[in-house]
């Protein structure tokens, strides 16, 4: 089915009659169809479809997953909702593909195209079809704010074995001011350009780090502002409850901010650090319950696998209850996040961070950042070793694991912020090792939280027999899973402590001078 296509665009409007006249002088041309186009392009907040090489189009209840260059890969009918998740689609290849690309993120409209698509056919002397072309004209809009006409888009669809007509028409177009799109450029790029947009990877990455020439105040300000931006960027999605990832990313930025405050409190003017620390702790506590319930709901498939089929009905009821509880908790959280206290907190923090580098009243802030970084990293590393050692030494309760998990996070955050001050290779290897350990520690902690939640539910809610059975099955399954992960955590701790490179890294930290 090899054929290939060429795409062209034109600066300005197209005189179709004149164009058809010119094409008609080379080949008989007939209009095949005219379509009114009203398509929405859907993607996740962080453009996962686009970055994975896809566009996902919707026209009414019809959905098309296409390559970035516009070649349809799958088509399917689906629900018409303002936000969609992969699980809203019928089982099949398209759903699987959406699941692997979008994960838990909602697919929301990012662009709307309204216009005309006219299709034409060119024939040879035998009246055999030798070339198809389509012409798109219209308007693109995003968020009701950006709106504008896009440049005419003409696409030549070759027919296998008939290359000459395609070449001749391509030449004719170029002679008449049409420009061929560059390799890899697509209609989607064209419409994005029309409203001056670029797909942005919104996912917050730990890409912000302190620079050697910075003072500590400057570094805190830069890192803090980047994290503040991440919180502000995710907050609208949290409030609209678009998907659970907004809250997750918001909380990650919040946790990092709290780490900055706790690890660098001596470098921040007295009084201020304590106030913000307390306020951000409060913000963490008010967003925690919804996040815990989100995690719970996301694990529904895992829960099903942990129990016999006879308990699935009870599990479904239980999950429904959790969903209702989540809705109630979300309303509370939504109110709090829009309260004066929360709004002021973010505004004050921003104001504080902006003014911080100029605050010369506080000498600790003027210390070169590398000097402070070494001190902080030594402390964090020491504590990480202490808490890892405690696990290997037999202290393996929930609180010990939790302590190590927090310590590992603090170390990671600081290592990411200060990575420029240490040998990159050593740091990369250590962080990679730490990543595996953190995954298990996180998994263990999630299980501990869930078990605690289900135990409380069992004790207080007095559910009916069906739910009680499911709860018992679930608790037994989760406990076994927790035990399994604990074993793995202990093994990982031992392996982590035994790493030659880790020992070497200890030396590096010890020997690095600010």
């Amino acid at each position, binding site marked *: *089915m090899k054929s290939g296509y060429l795409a062209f665009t034109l600066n300005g409007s197209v005189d179709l009659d004149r164009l058809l006249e010119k094409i008609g002088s080379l080949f008989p041309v007939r209009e095949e169809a005219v379509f009114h186009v009203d398509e929405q392009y859907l993607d996740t907040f962080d453009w996962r479809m686009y970055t994975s090489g896809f566009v996902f189009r919707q026209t009414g209840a019809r959905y098309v997953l296409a390559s970035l260059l516009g070649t349809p890969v799958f088509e399917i009918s689906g629900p018409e909702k303002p936000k969609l998740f992969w699980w809203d689609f019928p089982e099949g290849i398209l759903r699987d593909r959406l699941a692997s690309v979008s994960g838990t993120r909602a697919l929301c409209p990012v662009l709307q195209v309204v216009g005309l698509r006219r299709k034409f056919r060119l024939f040879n002397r035998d009246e055999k079809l030798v070339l198809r072309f389509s012409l798109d004209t219209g308007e693109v809009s995003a968020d009701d704010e950006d709106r504008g006409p896009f440049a005419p888009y003409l696409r030549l669809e070759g027919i*296998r*074995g*008939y290359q000459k007509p395609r070449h001749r028409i391509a030449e004719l177009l170029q002679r008449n001011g049409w420009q061929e799109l560059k390799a890899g450029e697509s209609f989607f790029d064209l419409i994005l350009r029309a409203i001056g947009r670029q797909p942005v990877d919104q996912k917050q990455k730990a890409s912000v780090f302190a620079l050697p020439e910075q003072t500590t105040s400057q570094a805190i300000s830069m890192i803090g502002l980047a994290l503040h931006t991440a919180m502000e960027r995710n907050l609208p999605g949290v409030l609209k409850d678009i998907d659970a990832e907004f809250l997750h990313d918001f909380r990650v930025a919040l946790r990092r901010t709290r780490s900055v405050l706790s690890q660098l409190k001596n470098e921040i003017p007295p009084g201020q650090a304590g106030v913000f620390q307390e306020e951000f702790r409060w913000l963490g506590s008010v967003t925690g319950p919804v996040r815990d319930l989100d995690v719970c709901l996301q694990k529904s498939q895992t829960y099903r696998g942990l129990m016999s089929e006879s308990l699935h009905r009870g599990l479904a009821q239980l999950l429904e209850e959790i969903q209702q509880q989540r809705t109630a908790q979300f309303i509370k959280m939504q109110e709090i996040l829009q309260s004066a206290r929360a709004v002021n907190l973010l505004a004050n923090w921003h104001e504080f961070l902006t003014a911080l580098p100029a605050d010369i009243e506080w000498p600790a802030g003027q210390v070169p950042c590398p000097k402070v970084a070494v001190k902080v990293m030594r402390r964090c590393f020491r504590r990480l070793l202490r808490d890892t050692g405690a696990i290997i030494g037999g202290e393996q309760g929930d609180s010990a694991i939790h302590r190590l998990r927090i310590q590992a996070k603090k170390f990671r955050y600081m290592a990411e912020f200060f990575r420029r001050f240490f040998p990159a290779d050593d740091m990369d290897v250590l962080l990679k090792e730490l990543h595996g350990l953190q995954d298990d520690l996180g998994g263990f902690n999630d299980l501990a939280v869930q078990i605690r939640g289900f135990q409380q539910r069992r004790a207080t809610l007095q559910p009916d027999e069906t739910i009680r059975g499911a709860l018992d099955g679930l608790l037994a399954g989760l406990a076994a899973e927790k035990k399994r992960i604990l074993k793995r955590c202990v093994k990982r701790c031992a392996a982590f402590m035994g790493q030659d490179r880790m020992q070497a890294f200890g030396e590096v930290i010890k020997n690095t001078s600010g």
Partner: protein
Amino acid sequence: MKIIAIFSSKGGVGKTATAVNLAYVAALGGCSTLLCDMDSQGAASYYFRIRPKKKFNDKKFLRGDINGYIRGTDFDKLDLLPAHFSFRHLDIELAKLGKKGKVPVLRSVFLPVADDYDVVFLDCPPNLTLLAEHIVRAADIVVTPVIPTTLSILALKQLLKLLSELKLDQNKIRAFFSMVERRKNLHVSTIEQYRKYPIFVKTAIPFLAEIEKMGINRQPVGATARNSSAALAYERLWQEIWQRS
């Protein structure tokens, strides 16, 4: 990739009409389809208004040098490898290869495009020569149109004999009654006598003016009249063949 040969040693039984229409229906149903016109008369190519490239010939065909000679039809997912006048020498060329049908030469012809197509239809010339041996050996399914008359039944029996001699599985044959005229007693009685054999699929293609008019319209019946009885009959035939495969 499945190779489906539309074959009968008898001429005028509706092989080309079958090949053209089944290929069209298969493509319409979503299969990437290649129709290979192996008959040097080039009737299938004519139906699709496709001429072969001048440089193409029987030798290139047997070497599997076909990629550059396949041409798109007017229909999505349906390509055609047009017949070349030199195809009348295919028997001679095969004999030169000296393999007497024992090696699947024809199958390897299509290997370069195996990833491009789900189905390849062979519109075969009427004969029982070496080429016929290669065709039945290469095909996964041999679809054979049978006019409900004595000579056509005889051609079917010869096909069965050929497969038996080549020690090939006779179950790959799907026979169907073609150009059926219910007003003819001979047609009715022949169908009555033979339709019980599992080699025959249930669908029969009636003798219809729409099919004859393909020569004027130069396109499959479904492209001219999507819901005509001829188009629907070919659709049913394809569904039955595809399901049984």
